[in-house]
């Protein structure tokens, strides 16, 4: 069965810390995505990548960066965590064509 794995289910970090959220997929998918989910706002795209070392900004990239050094791994980086980045973060991947996404089970990040 295909899998997208997010390294942490829950994470608590302090304001100003550099935070890494890791996502690994085992499906050889080209495209990978990071979304942020907040109540009443749905899912909003932070960054996505369509190939190794390639990245594109989504709708809310401010305060975030990403890294994709290998096809299977896509990392989201909070350069200096702030309390307004407390949220649920969802990683997803997909192959080409009209397929949907496969999602990870999310990381609930709390910044204190």
């Amino acid at each position, binding site marked *: 069965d295909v899998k997208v794995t997010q390294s942490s289910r829950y994470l608590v970090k302090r304001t100003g810390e550099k935070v890494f959220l890791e996502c690994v997929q085992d499906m050889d998918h*080209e*495209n990978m*995505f990071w*979304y942020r989910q907040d109540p*009443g*706002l*749905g*899912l*909003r*795209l932070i960054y*996505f990548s*369509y190939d190794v070392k390639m990245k*594109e900004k*989504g709708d809310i990239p401010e305060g975030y960066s990403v890294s994709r050094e290998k096809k299977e791994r896509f990392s989201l980086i909070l350069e200096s965590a702030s309390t307004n980045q407390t949220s*649920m973060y*969802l990683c*997803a991947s997909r*192959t*080409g*064509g*009209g397929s*949907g*996404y496969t*999602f990870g*089970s*999310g990381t609930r990040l709390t910044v204190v």
Partner: protein
Amino acid sequence: AQTVTQSQPEMSVQEAETVTLSCTYDTSESDYYLFWYKQPPSRQMILVIRQEAYKQQNATENRFSVNFQKAAKSFSLKISDSQLGDAAMYFCAYRKGGGSNYKLTFGKGTLLTVNP
């Protein structure tokens, strides 16, 4: 920019009854895909059903079916014979077609409660 609107923040249904969740979208594209995703309390997003815009026939998956009205830009999800396990947040999503590097745009979600 494409937008997806789910006008019902919350819905409830009795077990074994039928419920319809609404979704409208805005796009100038003719080639696109529409999706319904389910997110139960476990947080795992699950693809429920998918519709290609060029197909006139409405997609169905067991108890789940859609009413796709392309001219009206409407894409509603009907759940028949509702079960307790259907309780979840449901998200409608849109993706442009014609290429592989296009993102999914989501609505804000509808929280479905199933009453026994």
